[in-house]
């Protein structure tokens, strides 16, 4: 009896250790990936943000890069533009995608054809789509403004007028709505018909059915669209840069004197500023500060949206 007492804790401790090792072994691919591709870049970004670093020479500069952020007119312009896109473009994309998906669920004939037509622009590579879109709405060479003018509508100079550039980019994003639309369409088709039938028997009208049945059922998908939309918009780069270059008639290359964010900084997004500082000016230390700002903002939005997501889970 006396000898058996110390054996049990040792066995239990070994078992626990083995269990932990097994867990770690299973987790190791993820841990390695996380360390290499997420933790290290993040730590390196913080580290280099305190240096002047042009990819060759590393000079400690303390908080200089952080202080410069407060007087960098490009960065603040980019922050404002990116926030505008997050606040306006993301909700509009979700709403427009939902409206199209809703429409497609109602159409009896030709739904498949319309679905393909609405989805097609999303399949076009972003650079080609943007160049084509800028051409179509160009007031001088494009057909859209000309046709509109013939019927008495004077459309704005979308990508050359600072006031209309972001609405123009939003329009471009709505044209490529296929990704959001298809996800929401799948969600709408997933709503059990029996719920609508029961509501109809209870006398619910179309709005009440949408408000009380459709919306709660597809809420997780809507939230997913919003989360991914915000993250995509925080990374918004290609379309803004291509639209700026295409609308001012320049083929951008290193060394050109193109001011970023044409016209008048209206299309300058935060990732574009980051790219410009890091890979055109080679101010890597300052680019790391910008990356950290983007990190904090992205994390803030993601936390808010994921908390909401969990709230949905709790309700269920």
């Amino acid at each position, binding site marked *: 009896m006396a000898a058996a007492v110390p054996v049990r804790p040792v066995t239990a401790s070994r078992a626990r250790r083995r269990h932990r090792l097994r867990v770690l072994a299973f987790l190791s691919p993820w841990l390695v990936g996380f360390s290499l591709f997420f933790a290290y870049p993040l730590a390196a970004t913080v580290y280099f943000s305190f240096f*002047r670093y042009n990819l060759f020479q590393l000079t400690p500069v303390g908080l200089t890069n952080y202080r410069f952020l407060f007087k960098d007119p490009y960065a603040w312009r980019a922050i404002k533009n990116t926030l505008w896109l997050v606040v306006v473009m993301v909700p509009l994309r979700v709403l427009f995608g939902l409206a199209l998906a809703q429409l497609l669920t109602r159409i009896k004939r030709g739904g498949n054809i319309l679905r393909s037509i609405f989805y097609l622009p999303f399949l076009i590579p972003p650079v080609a789509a943007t160049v084509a879109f800028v051409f179509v709405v160009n007031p001088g060479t494009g057909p859209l403004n000309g046709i509109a003018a013939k019927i008495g509508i004077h459309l704005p100079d979308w990508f050359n007028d600072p006031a209309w550039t972001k609405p123009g980019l939003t329009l471009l994003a709505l044209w490529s709505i296929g990704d959001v639309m298809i996800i929401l369409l799948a969600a709408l088709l997933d709503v059990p018909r029996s719920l609508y039938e029961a509501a109809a028997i209870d006398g619910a009208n179309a709005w009440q059915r949408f408000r009380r049945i459709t919306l709660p059922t597809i809420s997780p998908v809507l939230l997913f669209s919003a989360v991914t939309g915000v993250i995509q918009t925080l990374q918004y780069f290609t379309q803004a840069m291509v639209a700026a270059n295409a609308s001012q*008639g320049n083929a951008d290359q290193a*060394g050109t004197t193109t001011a970023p964010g044409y016209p008048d900084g209206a299309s300058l997004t935060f990732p574009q500023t980051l790219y410009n500082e890091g890979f055109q000016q080679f101010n890597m230390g300052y*680019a790391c500060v910008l990356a950290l700002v983007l990190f904090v903002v992205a994390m803030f939005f993601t936390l808010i949206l994921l908390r909401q997501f969990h709230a949905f889970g709790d309700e269920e």
Partner: protein
Amino acid sequence: MSPRPWRLITASIITAVAATSCTAGGQSPSGGGPKADAPQTIEVWHGWSAPHEVKAFEDAIAGFHRLHPNITVKLVKGQDDTKILNAIRSGNPPDVVSSFTTNNVGQFCSSGALQDLTPYLKKDEVDLNLFPKAVQDYTQYKGVRCTLPLLADDYALYSNKALMKGNRPPKTISQLTALAKKLTVRNPDGSIKVAGFLPSVTYYEHVPEHIATTAFGATWLNDQGRANFATDPAFAKYLRWEKSLLDWYGYDNVKKFVHSMGQEFEASNPFEKGRVAMAVDGEWRTKFLQEEAPKLRYETTPTPVDDARANTYGGGFITGTVIGIPRGARHAQASWEFVKYLTTDTDALVTFANGLGNVPSTIPALASPNLRLPPQFTTFLNVFKNPNSATIPSTINGGDFVVKFQSFVQDQWEPGKVANLQQGLQGLDKKVDDALRLAGG
């Protein structure tokens, strides 16, 4: 802490880092490599990509193969400065690189990304006076010569003979202004049908450095290497002239015209289409005109200059492609032989210039009877040799000061948003200097 917040935080970090990661690393070692007469292969990165451009490069180095049969040259087309710098930084650079822009020479030289060529030049007693002075200037930074010129570009005035209606091309800014107004044809609604000369910096090559530098003698940086916009009166003079002619056309009319003219390097170019009587452009336009508008009758003359600087007429803005040896190049000796051949051998330069329609970058090549270029090209050869020709200075942060000035003119000055020009230029100076300091300049 319960597992849920951890999950939240982890998921957020993954999302955010995926959106933002900014990585960097250490330095790569310098290289030396085998002697130039040993059998070896060197890798040469360049930016040209069109088939006729690639062929021109291959033709230009045919003589090098004969001279150095032991060195095999592997040409890699379509490379830009970002790829070049990333390759150097990774410690696995090519042996020779060429860059389309002179703007990054300051960065290349100050950071040591490209090797200082001075020891090689001294060893082989290469006379730098082979190159015009402006070219010598734009291929070095603060005494560190890390690049040599590989062909050049310069700018002059193109005039459409039919639209000039018998008038001679202008030599001074006042003549240019008067002629621009005289030759302009408007539509009934006041919009521009044919422009005499568009002063806007948004018109293709009418960017400030191409006009303000030599036409007005603007000095971009002062002796301390700081922005000079508010101090040098040439900038205010240039801007006031530019705005007064722009306002004569009407800002909205110019904007409408510029935004309707399409891409610069297409047959829809308004000079090629006969919608612009006079335009400042690079020498390459002669090649485009040959191919896209062969029937257009035009002539070229040096860019008009400010009346107070009439004695400097004949010069123009110069820039060009540069070539150098990255640090860490594995065959540095053979690379130097290649760079020396391509930048100083008259036949190689002439062959290359003929193939690309560019200006050869040495004085002997400029005088070569083997140059086969259209008669209008002579102006560009003369501009290149002219002592009044100039370029912009190299800085540690490339052409940032040019980009900021362009942005100021395009977005603030031309639309009339600048109430006090002097104050505006002082603010611009501060922005440029802040950015220079950030980069360590």
